[in-house]
C-alpha cells in the first residue's frame, strides 16, 4: 500500500497527523504530506482510518 495527500483537497486539519504521525506530517502554512514508499503492514489499518477520518477526503490510498 502507498498513500498520498491530495494538496488541492487538503484542509490542513492535521487530523491525519494526530492519528498517525509516523506516516503524515503537516507544516504550518502548508498542506499535509505522507511518507513516500510502501506502508508497513502494521500501519495499514491506521492509514485506512486516517483516510476515513480526514474531513476533506484528501488522503488517497493505492493498494
Amino acid at each position, binding site marked *: 500500500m502507498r498513500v498520498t495527500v*491530495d494538496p*488541492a*483537497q487538503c*484542509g*490542513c*486539519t492535521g*487530523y491525519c497527523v*494526530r*492519528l498517525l504521525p509516523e506516516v503524515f506530517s503537516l507544516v504550518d502554512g502548508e498542506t499535509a504530506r505522507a511518507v513516500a514508499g510502501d506502508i508497513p503492514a502494521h500501519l495499514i489499518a491506521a492509514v485506512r*482510518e486516517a483516510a*476515513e*477520518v480526514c*474531513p*476533506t*477526503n484528501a488522503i*488517497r490510498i493505492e493498494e
Partner: protein
Amino acid sequence: MQSFAGTTLDPSRGPSVSEMTWLTSYQDVDEALKAHEIVQGGGGLRDSEPFVGHGLLSLSGDEHFERRRIEAVLFRRAALERYQDAVLAPALHASLATCERGADGLARGDLQRLLRLALCRVSAALVGIDGVETPAVIDEYLSYMDRLSMGTNIEWASGDHREIIRVGRKLRAEFDAKYIQPSLRRREALVAEYRAGGRSAEQLPTDLLTVIVLHKNHFTQHSSEAMVSEVVLFNGATTGTITQAVPHVIAELSEWLAAHPEDRPRVEDRQFLRRAVIEGIRLHPASPYLIRQATAGKQLRSGRRLVAGEYVVLDLVKSSRDAAVFAPDPDRFDPHRVPKVRIRPMGLTFGDGPHTCIGMSMTIGDGGAADEDAPLGFAVYLVREFYRAGIYVDPADPPRWNDANVRNEYAAFPVRFDNLAR
C-alpha cells in the same frame, strides 16, 4: 445584505448576525475556514445550543476530532453503498409511485415533495430510527423535522428567539419519546448481545444510534441532550440539504441541456453529473452563511484584521460567486466551468477545514475514487435517476420561489416524468 432581525438572548455570546463582520471574498472565506484561530461560532454555541449543543457542529479541538473519528464509520464506502442501494433506491421508487397520472398518461409531482419522501427514509436509516415507512408515519416524521429545524436555524430567525426555544424544546421531548427512545432501546439490546459474544460487530446496524450506544460515555459526558442533538442534526442535514440542493441542480441543468443539446447524453456520465451538482450547489449553497469566531487576533492574506473574540459571518453565497475566481460569468451555471485560479473541485459549499460537511461524500461521492462502481453520492444519484425517468420542467408551470426563508428553497417545483413506467 439580507436582514436578520432576531437578537441573541445572551449578549456575551456575540452580536446578532446582522451586526457581525461579514467575509464575502472566496479567499477570505477559504482562509477563515482553514485557520486554526477561527473556530465554530454558531451552530450549537449561541441560541441554537438547546438544539445542536454538544453536537458535531459545535465541537472543536480534541472533542471534534474524537467525534469525527467515532462517526466516520457511518460514511465508509460500504455503508454509503448500502444506504444508496438498499434504502435510497427503493425509497425513490416508492416516492415516484406517488406521482399522479394526467389525461396524457404522464406522471406529475412536486420535486421537493418527492425528494422529501425519499430522503426522509434515508435519514431515518442513517440515524437509526425504525419504522419510518408508511405514508402516515413519513408525513409525521417530516413534520417533526421541519419544526425542529426552526430551532437548529434559530440564529437566522427573525422571530422571538425565546418562543422558538420554548416550542422547540417541547417538540424535541416529543420526538425523543416517540421516535428516538424505542429505536435506542432496540440498539441497546443488540449492543448488549454483541458485548456478551452473541453477535458479531458486522451484525450490528450501521447507524448513528448504534454508534451512540457503542460510545455512550463520549456522547453523554457533558449533557444527556447531546444524543438528541446529534440525531436532530443528522436528520435535518440529510433530508434538508439534499432536498434543497437537487431542485436547484435540476432547474439549472434543464436550462443548460435545452441550450446545449450536445450534453444531453452526458446525463449518464457520472463525472459530468457530479460537476453539474457541484456547480448547482455553488450557485445555491445549502447553508448560505456560517458563523465563526476568532480565538486570537488574525490578519488574513487580504490584509483584513480580525481581533480576538470577534464574530464573523462567512458568506457562502457571495464568496461562491466571487469574480476573482469565477470570472467572467460567476453567476452563470456551467458544468464545464474551469475556475480562473486553482481551487478545490467542490469549492466552499461543503465548508473546509475540520468542519467540512461530514456528509460531503454521501452527497456528491468521493471525487478521488477511481472506480466506476464507487457510490455516486445521493444528490448525483437522484439527478441521474430523475433524468432516467424523463424529468421535464414545464416553462408554462415553472417552479415558484419561497421568499420567506433564508435557505434558498422553492415553495413549489412542479415536474413531469416522460419515461416513468407505471
